[in-house]
C-alpha cells in the first residue's frame, strides 16, 4: 500500500499548481478588464464547456482517489478483511487506555484499531516522528470506531487525539507507543 506521505505530497503539488494558476488568471483578468479592448458577448458554447469542465473536475477527484488510494477500498470494505493484528483501545476521562502488551506489527500487516469511548467524542490519530499524520478517525461514544490500516514503513509511531474534547483533552498524546518492524 502506498504510504500516506506520498498522497499528501501529490496533493500539495496539485493544489499549489492550481492555486498559482488561479492567482495568475485573476491578475491577468484584472488587467484585461481595465484595458482597452473589444468587449463582445461570449457564446453559449463557452458556458456549456465550463459546465462540462466543472462536472469533470468534481467527479474525477473522487473517482481518481477511490482507484489510486488503497486505504479507501480497505476502509469501505473493512468487514471483509481479516486483520493480522487487533488493537483494542479505550478512552475515558481524556486518557487512552492501551492494551497491556506493547503494540507491535510488521510492515504490510493489516492492523485493526478498535477504539471505544466511555464518555466524550475524541479523535484517534497515528503520527510519525516528524509529527506528520499517518491516519486518523473520530471516536464517538456509543458506537464502534474501527480503523484498519497497513503500515508501509518501519518505525515508532505516536497516538494522539485528533478531536477536541474540552481543554482537558488537548494534550492526549502517547509518544512512540506503536512499533512497526520490517
Amino acid at each position, binding site marked *: 500500500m502506498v504510504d500516506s506521505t506520498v498522497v499528501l505530497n501529490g496533493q500539495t503539488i496539485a493544489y499549489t499548481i492550481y492555486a498559482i494558476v488561479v492567482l495568475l488568471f485573476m491578475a491577468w483578468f484584472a488587467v484585461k*478588464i481595465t484595458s482597452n*479592448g473589444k468587449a463582445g458577448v461570449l457564446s453559449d458554447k463557452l*458556458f456549456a464547456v465550463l459546465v462540462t469542465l466543472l462536472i469533470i473536475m468534481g467527479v474525477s477527484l473522487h473517482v481518481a482517489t477511490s482507484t489510486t488510494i488503497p486505504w479507501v477500498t480497505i476502509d469501505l470494505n473493512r468487514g471483509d478483511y481479516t486483520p493480522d493484528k487487533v488493537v483494542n483501545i479505550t478512552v475515558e476521562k481524556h486518557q487512552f487506555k492501551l492494551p497491556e502488551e506493547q503494540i507491535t506489527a510488521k510492515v504490510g500487516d493489516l492492523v485493526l484499531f478498535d477504539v471505544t469511548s466511555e464518555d466524550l467524542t475524541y479523535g484517534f490519530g497515528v503520527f510519525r516522528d516528524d*509529527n506528520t499524520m499517518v491516519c*486518523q*478517525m473520530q471516536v464517538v461514544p456509543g458506537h464502534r470506531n474501527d*480503523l484498519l490500516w497497513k503500515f508501509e514503513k518501519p518505525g515508532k509511531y505516536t497516538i*494522539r487525539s485528533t478531536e477536541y474534547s*474540552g*481543554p482537558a483533552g488537548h494534550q492526549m498524546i502517547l509518544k512512540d507507543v506503536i512499533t512497526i518492524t520490517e
Partner: protein
Amino acid sequence: MSFKDTFLNGEQGIFKPDSLTPMQKLALRFVVVGVLYYGLATIEGMLMRVIEITPIPGFDAEHFFAIMTAHPLVGIFGASYSIVFGAFLFLLPFLMEKPLWSIKVGNWSFVLVAVGTLVFWGAAFVSHYAPLYTLYWPLPADFSQFSPVGGAVFILGIALVMVGTLLFVLNIFMTIGYTPEGAEKVNPKAMLASATGFSWKESIFRKKSKRREHLVSLPVAAIARGTVDTALNALILTFTGVLILVYMVAEIFGHSLKDTAIDALLYKNWYWWGLDLIADGLVLIFVAGTWYLLATLITGKDLYMAKWARLALWVEMVVSWTVWSHHLLADQAQPAILKIVSGEFVTAFELITQGLAFFITLITLWSARPLKMTNALKFLLGGLLGFGLAVPAGIIQADIGLNRILHNTQWIIGPHVHVAILVGLTMTLYSAFYYLLPILTNGAKLYSQKLANIHFWAHLIGGVGMGAFMGMAGLKGMLRRTIYYEGEYNIYMILAGVCGALLLFAFLAFLYNVIMTLGVNGLIGIFMPSKLKTKDLLPPEK
C-alpha cells in the same frame, strides 16, 4: 478642515446623520456593529495566532479554547450576519421598489443579534465555556469541565441571535409577499414561489412562447433562497440550544441528566445538517447573489446566462440540504452510502454551482470592458479569487481517501475556511460596502483612496497568505483545535502570524478611513432615531 474637525464631523463635513432615513439608519447600524464585531474577531484570531507560536502570559489553555469557541461565532453572527442582514434589508426594498415590511422588526433584529453576540462572547470570556461551535455531544453538557451557569448564559446569547435571525427571515419573506398600501395587489404565494425557486420549471422546460416572466429579479431570488437556509439553520440551532439548556438548567437545580441517552452520532448528523446550512448553504447563495448584483451594477449590463444562474441558485439551495455528511467522513459508524453520496458526490455539486457563479460573474464583467478599477470592483475580484481558491480546497477535503489524512488538520481551517470567509466572503462584503457607501450616507466622500488601497492589498495578501501557511502546516500534520508547545510548526505559524497581522493592519486602515469619512459624531448619529418619518429608502431630493 483640521484633523480634529474631520475626526469629529467626517471628510469635508459632508455626512449629516440627521439627513438619513430610518431605512438608511437601519442598514448603517447593522454595518457599523458588524464591522466592530469583525474587528473583535480579528483581534481574537491574532491572539490565537500568537499563542500557536509562543505562550502569552495570562492566556492558559482554558482561555485559548474559550476564545476559539467565541471567535467563529462572533465572526459569523456578530460580523457577517449583521452586515448581510443590514445590506439585504436595504437592498430587498430597493430591488422590489416597495418599502420594507417592517422597519421596527428590522431594528429588533439588529438589537437581538448585536446583544446576543455580546452575551455569548461575554459568557465565554468570563466562564471559559468552550465546547467549540461544533458542540459534539456530550461535550456541551460536560459539567466536569464547564460551568452550567456560564454555559446557560452562552446558550442564551445564541438564542437571542437566533430570534433576531428569525425576525430577519420574517421580514424578508413578508417584504417579498406583501402588498404596500395603495399598490396593485400581488399574490404572496406566487411571489414566494418565484423567489424561492419553486417555479423554476416555468423558465427552463417550457417552450419560449409559453414561458412566464419571473415575478422577482435574480438578486431577490438569491436573497430569498439564502434566507430559506438561514431559517432552517436558525430552527436547528434553536432546537439544539434548547436541548443543551435543559441539561444545564437541570444541573443548576441539582438534577444531573448525565446518563440520559442521546445518541452522539445521530446528534452529530442532526447538528451538522443544520450547521452546514450556513457554510454550504446561505453563505454560497448570498455570495453568488451579491456577485451577480454587483456585476450588473458595476457594468450596467445584463447578467450573462441569467436563467442558468437562477437555476444554479436553486440547485445550490437543494444541495445545501444534502451535503452535511462530508463532515462525518472520519466517523467510522457513519453509513458508507451517506459518506459516498452526501459526503463526496453531492458535495462536489458545490464546485459546479459555485464555479458557475464564478464564471458568470467574470464573463458579465468581461462583457463591459474596459472598466474602471473602482474599490467595489477590486474587492469583488478579491472575493471571487477567495472562493476560487477555497472551494476546491474544501472539495479535496470532502473525499474519503484524502479526509483520512486531512480531517481536523489546519488544512481545512486555513485554505478552506479562512480563505473562504476572509478573502471570499469578507472581500465581497467590502465590495458591497464601498459600492453602497455613498448611497447609504447621502453622498459621503471617502476620506482616503490610499487607505482603501492599503486596505485591499493588506487584506488580500494577509488572507491568502495566512490560509496558505496554515494549509502547509496542515499537510505536515498540524491539527486544528489544539495547542503545540514544542514549536513543532513554528516556521508556518510565524509566517501565518505575520499574515494575520497584515489582516489586522488592513482592518485598522479600513476602520480609520471609515471614522474619518463619517466622523465620530456621524457614527454616533447613526444610532440616534431618524428625524424623517418615512418608509422610503432615501430622503426626498431637494
